[in-house]
């Protein structure tokens, strides 16, 4: 608690934005296709703006948008549901407050989460897939 408080004070003093980051272990994913199964469900996790897939490390990292009020428990539950829907057993999910990165490099596996916004079911489907 003291460490988090110190971090928040330090971040505020540097004028940096603090965001919520969740790191989840993945079970049973051995190929890019496995991450696809999860990626198409990530949009259901509220407030998540960026997602990072690490194949070798069996890890999923999600950054929430700045100012998100989602609680750790809500985030853990939503991530576990997204992984379950993908057909894989969810691993441990850790939630932290971190300083917002200046970039999310695609080379390191970062992808912006696509959120369907249309009312039409077909258009929503199209937005998720293409």
């Amino acid at each position, binding site marked *: 608690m003291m460490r988090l408080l110190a971090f928040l004070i330090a971040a505020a003093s540097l004028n940096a934005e603090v965001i919520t980051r969740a790191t989840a*272990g*993945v*079970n*049973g*994913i*051995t*190929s*890019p*296709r*496995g*991450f*696809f*199964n*999860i*990626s*198409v*469900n990530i949009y*259901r996790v509220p407030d998540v703006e960026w997602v*990072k*897939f*690490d*194949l*070798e*490390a*069996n890890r999923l990292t999600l950054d929430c948008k700045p100012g998100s009020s989602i609680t750790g428990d809500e985030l853990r539950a939503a991530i*576990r*549901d*997204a*992984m*379950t*829907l*993908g*057909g*894989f*057993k*969810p*691993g441990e999910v850790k939630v932290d407050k971190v300083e917002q990165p200046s970039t999310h490099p695609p*080379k*390191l*596996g970062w992808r912006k989460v696509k959120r369907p916004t249309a009312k039409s*079911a*077909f258009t*929503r*489907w199209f937005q*998720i*897939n293409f």
Partner: protein
Amino acid sequence: MPNPLRVAAAAFILPITAAASAVTFATSLPVGQDQVIIRFNLQPSFSTHQLNNFQFPVSVGYGVTTKFALFAGFSQGFTSLNSGAYRPLNGGAGDTNLYARYTLYKIDKPGVTFRIAPLAGAFLPTGDNRFTFQGKLQSKSLQTGSGTLDPYVGVALGLQYHRVSANADATYRYNPVSATNFSLGSEMRFDGHFEYKFWPFHMPAEGLPHVANISLESNYFRDSRDHLSGIVSANSGGRIFRESATLQLSSLRWQVGGGVVLPLMQDLNGTGRTTQKIGYMMFFEYYLAMPVWRKSARRHA
């Protein structure tokens, strides 16, 4: 002129069963809930005695739940025989394979997954089994369908690690005799698949790289004899063992690959049967999410 009944097993490269993580069989293909996988295949094969076969099967998998998936195999293509004045050519849509698969047992751990999944379904008679040439009903290799609703059952297994993976299945297709006294022999097959991901040589600690792999697949077919005009054909059925090698490249949303098929054993019933020499295959697979109508996710079982 060759006896049409002697034209044999090149068309045993059944398009319907060609797909998946393994290329030559689709039964162990992983599909998540509300996910659709579409695979387009091109499979030319060439044999002795100028029997050529070009198939363009399309395989579709849909995850109804995390454990229950539906699969469909749509086949189309043509087969030709070019031997002097005897040049039959037949093509069109083949039988459609529909089956359901339920994951009965699975283990998911970091970097490894193991699954056992029984499956059951049928081949719908969307193909044609009445092709004749010079007044004679032609054999299995020149027909596009069985003419009957054919029950289909089996079991699939899969064990996958980051670098290596293996899949296997055992399936049986029962081909009953049609009203016109025609039947392609029932088919039992066993398939095995071993895959090694060789690229990237050193997997990066972060990120999701494109992955290249080499895949070796074995297919063993044991086919019963055909019925032609009410008579059990002596020159039909038999045992075939094939080995395939493919190179594949995969990403988050697609997979592409190609390779060769070599028949290592062709123990065919009867005499003078035409044996397959070599086959090729190419495929492109794309993954799609389906629209979701459920309001809440289900918990992992």
